[in-house]
């Protein structure tokens, strides 16, 4: 709760900056807990319904917790023509989840994102903070193993 207050105060509880507050909350908790939204409502006087509207409208927010490693497969145009859909399929197959879901062990979540702006390296993915370019479908099992290995 203290962290939430700190975030809200950082933006002076200014209602113009609720999106920024929610971004910080998302970074902190890996999702937007209801508790946090209630606190934002209390301090900024922005109605809870509007905060939910924002939380479900923008792609960077998630109401459910995401995994420790967020896998983002870029599905921008350059990546698409270079086979991004096949990469996404490969992750779904290897992790046994659908896009948008999190693995049972809470280690990986899988998302398709709209252009990471590294189009010259297409197809591009990010796992956590690491960016990988010119990815091949055949590389996916190795990549997943790398992060699973680091966890142990």
């Amino acid at each position, binding site marked *: 709760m203290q962290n939430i207050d700190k975030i809200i105060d950082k933006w002076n509880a200014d*209602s*113009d*900056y*609720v*999106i*920024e507050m*929610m*971004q910080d909350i998302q970074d902190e908790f890996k999702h937007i807990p209801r508790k946090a939204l209630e606190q934002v409502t209390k301090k900024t006087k*922005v109605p809870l319904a*509007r905060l939910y*509207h*924002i939380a479900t*409208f*923008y*792609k*960077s*927010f998630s109401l459910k917790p995401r995994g420790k490693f967020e896998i983002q497969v870029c*599905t*921008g*145009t*350059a*990546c*698409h*023509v*270079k*086979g991004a859909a*096949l990469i996404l*399929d*490969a992750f779904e*197959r*290897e992790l046994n989840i659908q896009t948008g879901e999190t693995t049972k062990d809470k280690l990986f979540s899988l998302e398709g*994102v*709209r*252009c*990471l*702006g*590294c*189009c*010259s*390296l*297409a197809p591009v993915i990010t796992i956590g903070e*690491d*960016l*990988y*370019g010119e990815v*091949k*479908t*055949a590389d996916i*099992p190795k990549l997943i193993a790398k992060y699973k290995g680091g966890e142990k």
Partner: protein
Amino acid sequence: MNIEQLKKIQTETLSKLDKYKAALMICAGTGCVSAGSFTLKDLLEKEIKKRNMENDILVVPTGCNGFCAQGPIMVIQPEGIFYQKVKPEDIPEIIDNLLEGKYVERLLYKDLKTKQAIPKMDDIRFFGKQQLIALRNKGIINPENIEDAIARGAYQALAKVLKTNKEDIIKEIIKSGIRGRGGGGFPTGVKWESALKAAEKKNEEPYVICNADEGDPGAFMDRSIVEADPHTVIEGMAIGALAVGAKEGFVYIRNEYPLALKRLEIAIKQAHEKGLLGKNILDSDFCFDIHIHRGAGAFVCGESSALMASMSGRAGEPRAKYVHNVEVGYRGKPTVLNNVETWANIPVIIDKGAKWFASIGSGDVSENPWNGSSGTKVFSLVGNIVNSGLVEVPMGITLREIIYDIGGGIPNGRKFKAIQTGGPSGGCIPADQLDLPVDFDSLTEAGSMMGSGGMIVMDDKTCMVDVAKYFISFLKDESCGKCTPCREGLISLFEILNRITKGEGKEGDIELMKEIAETMEVASLCALGQTAAYPVLSTIRYFRDEYEAHIKDKKCPAGVCKPLITYSVNDNCTGCTICARNCPVDAISGKVKEKHFINTDKCIKCNVCYEVCKFKAITVE
């Protein structure tokens, strides 16, 4: 700080830089950073320290060089030697050779035709045809050091116009002919003029905003400009603010661009410290401040009224624009919204003059900015192209020059099929129109548009129906859902395209899609919906036979649409077993050194066998 002090920083920094014998410019754009350029920078500094040469060789992390596919990139100045794909183990050799005045041959770029190594950056064809205005400082300055920018002339244009009256600044911008680089192509000066008039009439303080919400997939011009030279954006905004009488400015930047955001924050802070932002800028009466708003992942927020809604802490839904933003914009005040690249051009226009700027590009804009496209445009040249990267070229250059002279053509011996410009609302231009000059009006005539500058090259392995489906699926997800024609139209289009790519297309589908498209164009609220069907219309216009192959013959000629294709092994197979070992569903069988076989009942068409096969033995039909 006053103008004399600004000039003093410039001369002092220049003479400080002059003392070094060489400067190693390491590209630290997002692409090269992911390829390890920060590690390289640290190791270089260590090596130079080890040799006690800190006063002779300078290491500078720069913004995006543009030739991202070759990263990490290092350019040695003053000679301009270009090294590509540099690895940590190359460092000692690079420095040894530098001291002897020689090159490391294997790190040089090789010409595609002659296979000869080209030591100097300017001699490489990718760079040769470019003309840099917005990207003039890319790879030359450290974007996190304001003194570097000042040494290259930053804030001199602002100093030049501090005493000029508002109308004269605006006149200069109109005369330059510059049109908005974000996609709309509206004359920038005319926009400023309307905002100034509205502000004076209503006696209100206007705002200036920089749109850095680069949502077009396949485009990264704005990210690169901010990462390479954030001060040119700040200076451009300050000049705009001065011209319309604004005291506050905002940058709305995409959350997906953490490095650009960080560099912008640093640049704003440094500009404050130097008195180039804040109160009484350069000892004048002019006060101006810039705040940052982060986007949260919504494509529609690139639209002006949605962007302003998002900046007010609401969902990014556009409004009907009977009243323009220049009159009633952010917080109800007159607002000038320009894109990153437009702002980045402003200081150069002021510095070198409108006449100079207008002489570049196509058409004659001296009487009216609508009569042509002046200046340069930055494009991100990506997709199935050899030299993929960021290029800045004069307006009016042909697509052929961009694709073949700069881009080096299509890789893997494949054929050019189409080039997609203008983002999701743009269109695909076929091979017989490659001599089209690239400017605002010619591209629109061809059924596409300039957009913000993404250029995605597609080879003959690209299915145009799939591309149309891709864009419609993108826009379907990104439509804010407020107005019915856009929301429902996109869903209908997607359903039809989805059927066609599954082999369930019907006679009359093409006509139905055209009808939906027409309705969306006239009835949608904002530009997103009005132009959303363009990818469908342009692919029907130029690639109708491909639609018909899907609908009538139930075939995907490019071999992309999964339900319509099968994988098989051809006679090139040497029996190396690599495909069988990599197949995730064990659908491939065969003995060593004998032709393999794919069980089509088991095959999930994941393309892994095609990728790993070294003998082109997998056929996709």
